């Protein structure tokens, strides 16, 4: 999942200056831009997946709900929700559901004028590859990736912001349901906490594009969840160390560890469930 923010200070300086080469070079060096990236729904589900977790069809948004989404904002957010559902379906290998969800995503993406990804030719590939697990995972990843490229290249980051918000809330909803009640030793809960950083980057992205009214509204909806994620404790007692093995492969050890207590866990969980209710 992707997004970008241009800090235009350097550009503005360059435009105002430029009287001579020396100044121009100095200004060019000052040019800085920061872009935010965050993992895709496929990467989120690959990260949390373990052998003990099974696919639960009751957790995904039924395709029959698609007729409920009438305005562009709800359609765009729902598109993100269904993209996350398709990622969950493919990563957890429930391939019988994949075609229906893919077609739903195709229909919604046409409604929000995203034409380059999730096309019907790919749907035919899914039909041909229903037994081929790797192909279906690749199709899901490729389609998402080309949608992101299409949106960025067409300066539609605001659409991407809405899609990503819907997708992340759906990812969290499924992850919290799979994790169940709080237990400090639950490995899935440890992984859910790690998603805080991904959510932070998503939220920063929403803030950047919040001059768009729809993005602003969604950022306001997600703000309480952001505040709750900020309550996750950061144990900074261990400094990051960098090692290198004999093949030149680096190993990053130590660093900040995130910790959550039962109260904050339950509050984040409830906030996610409430947001998901609003989104679908």
């Amino acid at each position, binding site marked *: 999942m*992707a997004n970008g923010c241009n800090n235009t200070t350097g550009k503005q300086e360059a435009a105002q200056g430029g009287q001579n080469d020396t100044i121009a070079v100095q200004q060019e060096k000052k040019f800085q831009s920061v*872009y*935010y990236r965050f993992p895709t729904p496929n990467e989120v589900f690959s990260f949390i997946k373990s052998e003990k977790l099974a696919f639960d069809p009751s957790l995904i948004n039924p395709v029959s709900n698609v007729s409920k989404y009438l305005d562009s904002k709800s359609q765009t957010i729902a598109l993100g929700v269904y993209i996350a559902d398709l990622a969950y379906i493919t990563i957890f290998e429930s391939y019988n559901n994949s075609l229906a969800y893919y077609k739903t995503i195709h229909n919604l993406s046409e409604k929000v004028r995203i034409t380059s990804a999730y096309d019907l030719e790919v749907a035919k590939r899914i039909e041909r590859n229903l037994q081929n697990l790797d192909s279906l995972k690749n199709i899901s990843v490729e389609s998402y990736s080309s949608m992101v490229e299409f949106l960025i290249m067409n300066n539609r980051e605001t659409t991407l912001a809405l899609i990503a918000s819907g997708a992340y809330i759906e990812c969290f909803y499924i992850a919290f349901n799979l994790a169940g009640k709080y237990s400090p030793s639950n490995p899935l809960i440890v992984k859910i906490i790690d998603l805080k950083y991904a959510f932070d980057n998503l939220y920063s992205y929403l803030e950047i594009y919040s001059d768009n009214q729809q993005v602003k509204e969604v950022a306001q909806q997600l703000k309480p969840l952001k505040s709750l994620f900020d309550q996750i404790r950061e144990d900074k007692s261990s400094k990051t160390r960098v090692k290198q093995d004999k093949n030149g492969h680096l190993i990053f050890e130590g660093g900040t560890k995130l910790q959550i207590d039962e109260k904050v866990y339950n509050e984040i969980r409830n906030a996610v469930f409430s947001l998901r209710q609003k989104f679908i």
Partner: protein
Amino acid sequence: MLKKNNMHMKALGKLGLLVIIFGWVVFAKAQDCYYFHEYQCKFPDNTYYLNGQSRSALFTYGMTSQFKMVTFGGEDYHISICYQFKIKNVRFRLIEDNEDKTVLFDNAENKYVTEVSFSNNVARRIIIEISVPDEPTAKDRGVPQCVGVLIHSRKTYQEPKNKLGF
């Protein structure tokens, strides 16, 4: 008459050159580096999966740009960069996005290699910083060119715990 024709030819030649340069600039801007990273950057072995945080962008000489990515604990990452610039010393650094801004990797200390792989024990926010050095005499100075960052990831391989017997 011949001299006049020559002058015309020279003027036309210069105009042609300008058109080519202008066309190149327009093309570079118009192409927006669509999928540049997937076509030009080096892929790791097939145990890795393409990571959606990969990105390409337009740069000019003397420019530095960063993007912030998220890495998970228990995963390996392979990051490779590629670029259209004809120089070989494009710098890329991995910096942990924490209070210390710990530099995790700097290719300037590693012969400006264009790829690195690492394992990660906890989730981290990482800044990928790309710096294209200034080249005041470069002929293509001022022409935006593509830089790609291709990211792959996989779960870190865990050695099975040694057990005696079957």
